[in-house]
């Protein structure tokens, strides 16, 4: 599509031919004007026409494909050149166009316009290269209270009751075999200390783990009441990572996290109701 610019080194004419891409006839004309070191408005188009055609001849010699646009430009330049061979008052006035478009002016206007866009393209190119060196600030995603139970499914009082029922089943069977009478060795306040102790050392604990060492139904119920009391006091939070999974108990995050809904439920239920599952 495009033709090439030849820069023939003076010293190694035959061997050193540089090919540079011309973007079209206007580009070639601008190159020729630049070589003349004159302003576009002051360029001698007659001379330019001669140079342009010389270039096309050179391209032919090098067997390069010459795009149609170059030939159109060559003919325009030839037309301008031929016009200028005649005195002004003998120049052909095309009927209906009376004095209208001076082909010289038309070509110069086109060259000036093209030059401006070429310069604009160069500025864009600078920006393009510059953009590669500009790095935006991209901070890490900020995660407040990571691992907080906010996003996890809420645990309701019924979930807790179901869980404690499972634990209690262990004792219903055992109670039938032996009917020894024990005095109540456990108190709720003791169990509160126990639960807090576990959580202080571990951070979080699974529901069943709290009852692993329980030896009687009473002990399970005491621990459970302690748990409910701590939830009511917003000291603990219960979460269930996924539906039907083991309930997890952790220390409540002070503020920031809205108290989970089950706390409200717990508050509204007097412990007496819960203790008889």
């Amino acid at each position, binding site marked *: 599509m495009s033709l090439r610019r030849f820069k023939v080194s003076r010293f190694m004419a035959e061997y050193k031919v540089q090919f540079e891409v011309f973007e079209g006839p206007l580009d070639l004309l601008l190159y020729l004007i630049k070589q003349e070191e004159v302003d576009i408005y002051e360029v001698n188009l007659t001379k330019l026409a001669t140079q342009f055609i010389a270039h096309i001849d050179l391209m032919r010699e090098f067997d390069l494909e010459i795009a149609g646009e170059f030939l159109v430009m060559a003919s325009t330049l030839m037309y301008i050149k031929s016009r200028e061979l005649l005195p002004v008052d003998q120049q052909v006035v095309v009927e209906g166009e009376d004095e209208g478009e001076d082909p010289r002016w038309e070509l110069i206007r086109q060259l000036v316009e093209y030059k401006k866009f070429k310069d604009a393209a160069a500025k864009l*190119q600078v920006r393009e290269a510059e953009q590669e*060196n500009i*790095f935006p600030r991209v901070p890490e995603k900020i995660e407040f209270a990571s691992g907080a139970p906010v996003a996890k499914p809420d645990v309701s009082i019924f979930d807790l009751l179901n869980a404690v029922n499972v634990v209690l089943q262990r004792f219903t069977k055992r109670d039938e075999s032996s009917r020894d009478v024990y005095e109540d060795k456990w108190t709720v306040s003791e169990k509160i200390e126990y639960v807090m102790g576990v959580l202080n050392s571990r951070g979080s604990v699974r529901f069943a783990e709290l009852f692993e060492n329980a030896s009687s139904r009473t002990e399970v119920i005491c621990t459970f009441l302690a748990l409910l009391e701590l939830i009511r006091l917003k000291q603990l939070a219960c979460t269930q990572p996924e539906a039907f999974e083991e309930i997890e108990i952790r220390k409540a995050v002070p503020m920031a996290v809205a108290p989970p809904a089950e706390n409200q439920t717990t508050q509204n239920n007097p412990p007496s109701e819960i203790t008889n599952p």
Partner: protein
Amino acid sequence: MELKFILESLLFSAQKPLNVKELRDVFATAAEAEDADAAVKSLKKVKEEDVTAALETLAAEHEAAARSYRLVCVAGSWQFVTQPEFAPWLKALVGVKARPSRLSQPALETLAIIAYRQPVTRAEVEQIRGVNIDGTMQTLLERGLVESTGRAEVVGRPQIYSTTTMFLEYFGLRGLEDLPAADELRRIPIERPPAPVTADPGLATVPPEQLNLEAAEGKSQKVET
């Protein structure tokens, strides 16, 4: 608390560039929080022009402070970016930015014409460049830098093209008015010089002596026609 510093903190920790609308949404949301104090609530309906003005001030202050980073607005969204001269170290830190290959000269010229003269038809671009642009247009369309935005109401109803948001982002431009020398290249026609200065003196403008007679005849002929 000054508005510009609130904006600075937001843009400092934002995951992506934020535009004025998104920033104002943040103010509205913050004011709706339960524990929002009077200062936060007072900015609930902060005006668009106030936000823009504060951002401009902030950007100017950062510019004046000549830090290693600055606040820029690209395609209407604000973000902090580093100054280009620190690229060698940043490249070592985060790696070379993943960017498509640089645009060719024909593509840049075509893109420049579309950017300044949009919306524009393919023929108008070809008129200015003096060459066929089918190939380069294809490249620009594929890279999402230009898009067809309708059809011109002229014979053949040719498609008209405009640049995209991605164009602004690619070149780090705030908007089309941010293009270099935008006003000059937009639509203003190039002024014709008072007299054509290209004619070769002594060739055509001053007829040689011996041609005077024919010239006079030529004149009379002209009058006849």
